[in-house]
């Protein structure tokens, strides 16, 4: 059954009136006959609605900062925030020096009642001093949690003083959980800090190799970043830094010398991408390394940007070689997947990225959306001037950068930039809605009620989202694929990733376990016998 305004309304009528008015604006049925379709996004969560969203702390420490492997991340707060963000996101990392990879450690100031009453600054100081003594890191981040802002601990000055005392970079992030309306605020806060205190602190003035790039918004979940790097290095690119999967503080400092910045996750890193362009004159390219077609397109766009025939030729060589290797493998999985439908509801970027890969397997995405993306991720960056910051997000600081007097350099001429922008998403992102088929549903901040209702209406063959609804959906007899943590598999990016994904999705469908849901006695009548009265 397809969804129309009528049955969407019937569904929303089950809500209290006020909730209905609100939620209606967060749901769009794609209709390409309309010039533009506006969706409401990045607004406060309705209390009691059972959202999937997390908080600013998760967006800052959990997502952006946490993967930096040679940095010790101190969480200033009661134990929970540090504990839940300890090894739970699968941002992989490896290091030549095992004593410079701190990702298996969880450091918290473990605030107690007395710290709430008398302030926690002293304990934070002690914790930082001990971290320096034990770990000898080249940098430390301090992330604030909910009570820190309320009791007025000045983590910025504690960090500054500690930095001076120890002669290392100690950076404080005021990412209290209540800031903004979701993880998104935390991304912004982390971006500001990395731009202000890390990027550009290195000594390099020129890139150390040909075709120097950074990969932004790639967190190496299940090894995604490594698979992308494998291909890019093979083509001949010099990768300066990845933000921040398997990322390193030392590399990040020299991110300013790149000639092009790739943006995988637009939502979490577009702030740095923009600031790098403004400060150093480096354009960014929206890429998508999920799916074979998107990967190829991204590789060709990169080659086009550099405009070097050798690079172009090498790009096509690698593409041909990889295709020849993976296509036959994927072909066998297509037979299992073909003709099926999917929901794709993930954080702030994958809801879009995976649609192409699904399509390659013959699976149509009938509903997609984000927990915490903004209107530009839905509608494209051209709506940015129309977005009004509401009261809940206005306190998230904007960092204003200006062109660097010494280092600003136009990487390509304005004329060429304009030409390229006609052809490739250079410093631009067109959003999820444009890529979706007419009649498909786009939902922002999908909640538990809507999850169940949309499943009843659209009966998808697979539901891809996160851990909180995975088991809910599976109880309904529908396969569920986690697209945050890949169900502990991966990589899913690049050529090898597409094969892994095809294999895993096929396994979701082909598992014999689905055949056992109904016990045999439910549909088999008892052998009928008759009891005749009077007989012994």
């Amino acid at each position, binding site marked *: 059954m397809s969804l129309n305004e009528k049955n969407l309304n019937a569904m929303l009528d089950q*809500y209290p009136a006020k*909730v209905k008015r609100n939620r209606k604006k967060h749901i769009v049925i794609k209709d390409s006959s309309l010039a533009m379709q506006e969706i409401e996004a990045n607004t*406060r*969560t*309705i*209390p*009691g*609605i059972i*959202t999937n969203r*997390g*908080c*600013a702390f*998760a967006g800052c420490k959990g997502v952006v900062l946490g993967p930096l492997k040679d940095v010790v991340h*101190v969480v200033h707060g*009661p*134990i*929970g925030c540090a*504990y*839940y963000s*300890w090894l*739970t996101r699968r941002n992989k990392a490896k290091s030549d020096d*095992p004593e410079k*990879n*701190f990702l*298996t450690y*969880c*450091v*918290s*100031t*473990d*605030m*107690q*009642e007395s710290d709430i009453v008398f302030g926690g600054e002293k*304990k934070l100081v*002690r*914790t*930082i*001093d*001990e971290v320096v003594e034990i770990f000898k890191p080249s940098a430390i981040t301090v992330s604030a949690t*909910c*009570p820190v802002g*309320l009791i007025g601990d000045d983590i910025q000055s504690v960090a500054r003083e500690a930095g001076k005392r120890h002669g290392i970079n100690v950076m404080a992030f005021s990412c209290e*959980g*209540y*800031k903004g*309306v979701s993880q998104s605020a935390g991304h912004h806060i982390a971006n500001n800090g990395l731009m202000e205190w890390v990027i550009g602190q290195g000594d390099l003035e020129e890139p150390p190799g040909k075709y120097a790039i950074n990969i932004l918004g790639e967190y190496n979940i299940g090894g995604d970043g490594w698979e992308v790097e494998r291909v890019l290095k093979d083509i001949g690119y010099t990768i300066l830094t990845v933000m921040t999967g398997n990322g390193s503080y030392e590399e990040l400092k020299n991110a300013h010398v790149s000639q092009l910045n790739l943006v995988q996750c637009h939502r979490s890193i577009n702030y740095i991408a923009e600031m790098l362009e403004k400060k150093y004159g480096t354009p960014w390219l929206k890429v998508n390394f999920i799916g074979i077609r998107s990967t190829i397109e991204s590789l060709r766009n990169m080659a086009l940007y550099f405009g070097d025939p050798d690079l172009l030729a090498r790009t096509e060589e690698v593409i041909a070689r990889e295709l020849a290797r993976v296509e036959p493998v994927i072909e066998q999985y297509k037979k299992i997947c073909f003709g099926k439908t999917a929901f794709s509801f993930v954080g702030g970027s994958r809801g879009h990225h995976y649609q192409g890969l699904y399509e390659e397997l013959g699976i149509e995405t009938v509903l997609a959306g984000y927990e915490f993306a903004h209107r530009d991720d839905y509608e494209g960056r051209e709506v940015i001037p129309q977005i009004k910051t509401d*009261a*809940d997000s206005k306190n998230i600081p904007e960092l204003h950068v200006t062109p660097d007097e010494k280092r600003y350099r136009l990487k390509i001429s304005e004329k060429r930039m304009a030409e390229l922008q006609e052809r490739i998403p250079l410093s631009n992102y067109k959003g999820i809605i444009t890529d979706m088929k007419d009649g498909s549903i786009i939902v922002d901040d999908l909640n*538990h*009620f809507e999850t169940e209702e949309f*499943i009843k209406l659209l009966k998808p063959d697979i539901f891809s989202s*996160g*851990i*909180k*609804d995975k*088991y*809910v959906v*599976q*109880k309904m007899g529908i396969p569920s694929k986690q697209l945050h943590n890949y169900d502990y598999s991966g990589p899913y990016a690049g050529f090898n990733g597409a094969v892994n994904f095809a294999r895993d999705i096929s396994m979701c469908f082909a598992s014999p376990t689905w055949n056992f849901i*109904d016990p045999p006695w439910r549909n088999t009548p008892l052998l009928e016998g008759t009891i005749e009265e009077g007989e012994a």
Partner: protein
Amino acid sequence: MLDCTSKEIRKRAGGAINPAKTCQPIGAMYAALGIHKCLPHSHGSQGCCSYHRMHLTRHFREPVMASTSSFTEGASVFGGSANLKTAIKNVFAIYNPDVMAVHTTCLSETIGDDIPSIIKTSEVPEGKLVIHANTPSYQGSHITGFSNMVKGMVNYLSRATTEVKKEQVNIIPGFVNPGDMREIKGIVEAMGIKYIMFPDTSGVMDSPLTGRSVMYPGGGAKVEDIADAGNSKITLALGSYASSDAAHLLERNCGVPEMVLKTPIGIKATDQFLMALRQGFVKKIPYQMEEERGQLVDILTDTHYHFHGKKAALFGDPDVVIGLTEFLLSMGMKPVHVLTGTPGGVIGATVGDFEKEIKELLSISGIDGRVKAGGDLFDLHQWIKNEPVDLLIGNTYGKYIARAEDIPFVRVGFPILDRSVHSYLPIVGYRGAMRLVEMISGALLDRADRDAAEEDFELVM
């Protein structure tokens, strides 16, 4: 792995490194899921609620439902009253539970939101209930949060309404898995005693896959039963940290005598549990229990050479670790490092003293071990570096130490995120003890097989 952990121990006065505990609200959420048709509600910013749901879901591989007040910065400054009222209205209108069980976070506790007053002035539909517990994350641990929510249940629901106490026992099982709760109920049923268990997550956190989505599964303690707990003859609180405060309150409010027992892990604690049931209700111990016990003794005797004299390190939640320590000692093992992240002496709590209790157990067996409450896994790892062990027992986080030090590892406790089925099977009772013996023996023998020279590799062990 964990290459920055040095052997040399220096005193730390800062926070925790690799904690052996988490914060209160997740315990309260788990307890609330043990009420039939209850939706837990987290009064704070939504990050906590998501984290707690995720973590419970990863341990149980089950849906974990909970709502949140979704604080914004405005609410954090001016109070979260409006958020909670809106949430209560929406939850009943959209999700229709019988009970909403509200817990707090460090945010709403620091602000000082007065939850009872907010509930009183909220729109709660006829016949529906909203209960609450204060669960500040900066006190105690998730076990404290569990205890506080169970206390909240007693506070809001339990009433003494009969002149004479009924021939029924209250059982507060503590922070254990649904598989354990089923085992405890099975024991009490085998004894033929009428009982009320709360909270009870069996049938909720181990629900079947049927092809239908059920927001509130069939399990969970019924509200009328928790109410009737005020009329019971006695309350058995299993595990002093998780259960004794609620039992104490039940005694004070409703005159139901309390008896605090160890979580029935191992032979001694299970014996004590059965003796308490017999004493309270003068019933003959049924043959089934005697048979199970005899089977356990048989197994322990048959296999004692697998584990006797082996040194173990163990960590986890205090009630479970106390039970495990006692059982390891009765197996002839040597628990030389014993640690919990949950601190002792939490304000307002009537719970016991972990360090004292463990040291007494060890000294009876003549073992001089390291014991710490409020410790972390950095401590435990350093202890192990200084005095190596043959076996490590604890939750999933222990696997990093087990790998770093190449120690056989048995997963027991909360959370276990990297293995399945564990939450369905008990570690309590005689049958739970059999399972522990199997896991411990298995881990030690797998290691022996792995390490044996080819000529020493044995068929029969």
